[in-house]
């Protein structure tokens, strides 16, 4: 088998939510691998299933209303088979998670010290003094000034950027080999965003952990990721190393997205690219054929595959469906 083992392997993951008696898949057959020491970005617009993918890996879904199929392999374990008790040993210890809203993910009634130390208490056998040392070390690592005082503060006393640093400190507490960050900088100002992204890259350099970074912001991807997976309607439509993706985007969705980024206008008639139509709702999603086809109706039906799969078009660059070969923007010659 392969010499370089991947840290985390997701195979054909399907996450369905129950509507009445039917399950609709928000994540529909996603496979990906995360290696040590890399940042894998998952990009897509709202409703594409990127956050559901993260919460499925973390096992955060209510089993009564969700149906999860496939495999999430970590150290010879399929996480999806674990019971709650075993999962709790993995969460926070092997996989750390950073959420978008730092205020919502901190307990308003607990001091910063208690929140960080809670995770250490649960997963390690450090004593009180050792935990204190470790908490100070963590606060220093995430760049919080005056850690001795901040340790005693409550979340509402800190600014948004500081709170997000605390959330990162909690995620890092047990030195997890995997970190999942779901829109970690979306709620923050650009200057703070830059600091937090730098921090995440530095931490990754130091600890060698693998990071799954979920974001809708292509700028954040360009600044941090090593590898990128673009998601549309529950599926990965393109996957490539970051330089390759930005220099050589292939899938019509990726190209359309890159084209709708606001830029300086070249002329008065210059307009941003708009993707035709809207994202289909979960229950109306076509299960067959290319899911992006309705958004590019000027491309002939023959251009699409009947059952689109990911094809490796160049080393490490995968694209779903064959329509990219025939794709051109509306009103533009191929």
């Amino acid at each position, binding site marked *: 088998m392969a010499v370089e083992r991947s840290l985390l392997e997701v195979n054909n993951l399907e996450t369905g939510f129950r509507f009445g008696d039917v399950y609709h898949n928000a994540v529909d057959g996603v496979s990906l691998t995360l290696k040590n020491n890399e940042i894998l970005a998952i990009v897509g*617009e*709202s409703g594409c299933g990127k956050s559901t993918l993260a919460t499925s890996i973390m096992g955060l879904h209510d089993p009564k209303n969700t149906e999860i199929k496939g495999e999430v392999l970590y150290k010879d374990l399929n996480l999806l088979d674990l019971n709650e008790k075993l999962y709790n040993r993995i969460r926070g210890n092997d996989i750390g998670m950073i959420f978008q809203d730092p205020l919502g993910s901190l307990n308003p009634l607990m001091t910063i010290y208690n929140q960080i130390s809670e995770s250490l208490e649960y997963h390690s056998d450090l004593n009180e003094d050792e935990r204190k040392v470790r908490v100070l070390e963590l606060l220093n690592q995430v760049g919080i000034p005056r850690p001795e005082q901040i340790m005693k503060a409550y979340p509402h006393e800190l600014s*948004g950027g500081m709170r997000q640093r605390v959330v990162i400190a909690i995620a890092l507490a047990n030195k997890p080999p995997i970190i999942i960050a779901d829109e970690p900088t979306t709620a923050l*100002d*650009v*200057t703070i*965003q*830059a600091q937090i*992204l*730098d921090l995440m890259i530095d931490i990754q350099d130091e600890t060698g952990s693998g990071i799954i970074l979920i974001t*809708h*912001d*292509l*700028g*954040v991807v*360009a*600044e941090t*990721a090593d590898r990128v997976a673009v998601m549309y309607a529950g599926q990965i439509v393109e996957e490539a190393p*970051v*330089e390759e993706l*930005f*220099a050589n985007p292939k899938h019509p969705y990726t190209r*359309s*997205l890159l084209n*709708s*980024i*606001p*830029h*300086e*206008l070249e002329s*008065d008639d210059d*307009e*941003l*690219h*708009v*993707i035709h139509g*809207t994202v289909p709702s979960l229950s109306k999603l076509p299960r067959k054929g290319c899911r992006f086809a309705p958004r590019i109706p000027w491309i002939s039906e023959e251009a699409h595959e009947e059952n689109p799969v990911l094809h490796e078009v160049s080393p490490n660059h995968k694209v779903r469906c064959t329509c990219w070969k025939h794709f051109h923007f509306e009103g533009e010659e191929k």
Partner: protein
Amino acid sequence: MGFIEVKDLKVHYPIRGGVLNTIQDHVKAVDGVNLTIEGGKTYGLVGESGSGKTTIGKTIIGLEKATSGQILYEGQEVTNKARSRQKKYAAYNKDVQMIFQDATSSMNPKKRILDVIAEPMRNYFDYTPDEIKRKVVDLLEIVGMNAEAMYKYPHEFSGGQRQRIGVARAVASDPKLIIADEPTSALDLSVQAQVLNFMRRIQKEYNLSYLFISHDLGVVQHMSDDIAIMHKGRFVEQGSKSAVYTNPQHIYTKRLLSAIPDMDPTTRAAHKVERQRVEAAYDAQETDYYDPDGRVYDLQQFGDNHLVALKPEEPNASLQNENVKTGGER
């Protein structure tokens, strides 16, 4: 000359405390801002959260009270008169409209889109019901929606559609200025593109002015002719888009611009070095750009349509060097 002039606008909120709940201090949300708005132009107002940019927009339209300063509309003083029912302020009320960030909460969920869009028309014009219907259909068409949408309720639309309805409503009273407060911040990239395109088309058609308030420097650059960068309730830099973006002078502007993520992953390392250099410069040179109370200095003419809040005395030698160093790279 502009049709709206904002002169030395200040909006201070009292901080109460102590035993008798007396006023202890003030939060200076907006602290001395001047702005002239001309017809058909877009003014971008950029700043981080808490900089006071939304307060300026709200004060112009009358949702906040100005503490001092003047707002002039066609030379007429209208400060704090925006919600007045007196006839002499009706033209001002009609001519200044607003688009909000959250379209959902800015619409009455019990009203059909027809009534949502028609409300400003009913307030200011004497149209017959048929005329109103015709105008609503026209407005919906301008923002790329079908006439059937008229009979639906706000919840039946997606976020992007709702925001387009918000644009249609703002245009309904045939205004001269639309204050757009983060109109696309809650939208996805491709939907944002659509709303921005419609806003620009409408601007050309009606010769509208926009006061475009956003924290997103990319969107502001796309939309604006002139830009003002705000920090701590004051403008640190103001001028034409090209002047501010290509030749930023104030350290805060430089800091903000350098923090924008670069879309080119191949220059990532260089961009990071540059960003950290500017960040260090910002920390080191704070006293050159802010007075001892931490207040931004008054704006001074720097170039053609380019104002910068610099220290009042003689031009600082180290500052000049800084300009030379960073001049070529943006």
